[in-house]
């Protein structure tokens, strides 16, 4: 166990834990946007910034979702300095994604309702955290989407920017993992449409042989059958109608 202090409270955490999780386990709140327990830490949004002082007296700012606990570490999560930086970060995010309700709400909590920066046009809520791409790679295992290009042109996209990704099975985990609502999934009748910030793709849904409900994309079912080594015929009925 590692002993450290967060906001004056002495706590203990297991070695290898991030400051963020140690704080959470002790009911100390640190705002986060891109952190996602299902995938490995990445540190894209910087909102989880905290101020640390090491046992040897070195002071610096670190992202708590990446930084691991250390013996004798002193952490401050809500100083004036941090609030100021976080405010600027939120203003930048507001300017980048003026339509994201999640970001608006987060900013409002910090008392920020307007941004001094130039607002991006178009309904693009993507903050380039790559949660979707990392979930697709690490959890689903197909890597259908990724970040591409660099600098101001960086974007989350399908390969070649097509409205198609061969590897995509239409599971929708990306939409689920996106913290800002930049990816949407709509099922209508026999069709599922996934809309990414710059591309979209349609999937045929499979109809349950018993109740007649459309319950999952055919591609996803084929993928599950393949990876689990089960027969496709086991999936003609939806989970509710199987015994």
């Amino acid at each position, binding site marked *: 166990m590692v002993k450290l202090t967060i906001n004056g409270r002495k706590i203990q955490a297991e070695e290898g834990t991030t400051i963020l999780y140690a704080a959470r386990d002790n009911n100390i709140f640190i705002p986060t946007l891109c952190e996602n327990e299902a995938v490995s830490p990445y540190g894209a949004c910087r909102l989880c910034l905290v101020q640390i002082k090491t046992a040897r007296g070195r002071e610096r700012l670190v992202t708590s979702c990446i930084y691991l606990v250390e013996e004798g570490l002193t952490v401050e999560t809500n100083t004036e300095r941090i609030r100021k930086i976080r405010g600027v970060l939120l203003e930048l995010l507001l300017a980048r994604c003026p339509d994201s309700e999640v970001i608006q709400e987060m900013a409002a909590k910090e008392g920020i309702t307007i941004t001094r920066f130039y607002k991006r046009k178009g309904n693009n809520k993507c903050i380039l955290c790559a949660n979707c791409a990392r979930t697709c790679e690490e959890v689903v295992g197909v890597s259908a989407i*990724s970040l591409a290009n660099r600098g101001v042109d960086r974007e989350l996209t399908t390969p070649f920017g097509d409205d198609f990704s061969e*590897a995509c099975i239409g599971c929708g985990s990306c939409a689920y993992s996106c913290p800002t609502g930049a990816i949407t999934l709509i099922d209508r009748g026999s069709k599922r449409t996934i809309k990414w910030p710059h591309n979209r793709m349609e999937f045929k849904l499979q109809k349950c042989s018993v109740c007649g409900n459309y319950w999952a994309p055919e591609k996803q079912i084929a993928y599950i059958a393949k990876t689990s080594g089960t027969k496709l015929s086991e999936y003609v009925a939806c989970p509710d109608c199987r015994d």
Partner: protein
Amino acid sequence: MAIKGLRETVKKALDKHNNDKSLLVDILQDVQATIGYLPKAALVETGKQLGVPISRVYSVATFFKAFSLTKRGRHLINVCMGTACHVRGAVKVLEQIEQELKIKRGGTTRDLKFTLETVNCVGACALGPMVIIGEDYHGEMTPEGIISVLKQYN
């Protein structure tokens, strides 16, 4: 390029690097050196043969400026837009080239003779504005001077 040739080009690059996934950048460099650029089919083929998701190959190929996913001209023109060259009139030189070749920066002429790009400082600031064509460095360029320089290439 026919698919067969493509397959072999990719295979050769992979063999050279022992099919090492972490050497994707080097492999793509070799493929580009053979074909001249990285067409979609080449990226897909590289991903398939190496066992790396296409999304990752695309991500890497679009990240580095050294890679081009579109056809390139025989001569690559790089106009320096670094601070020194900029104040010495690089913008005028660039505009002149754009007009002369009827392409914008990043573009390639229809006859595939030139591809026009910009860089930020090539370390020869005292000789600015610098224009690099292929391996040749042309210093103290002017809008008038660049026209005769372009004529030296075919």
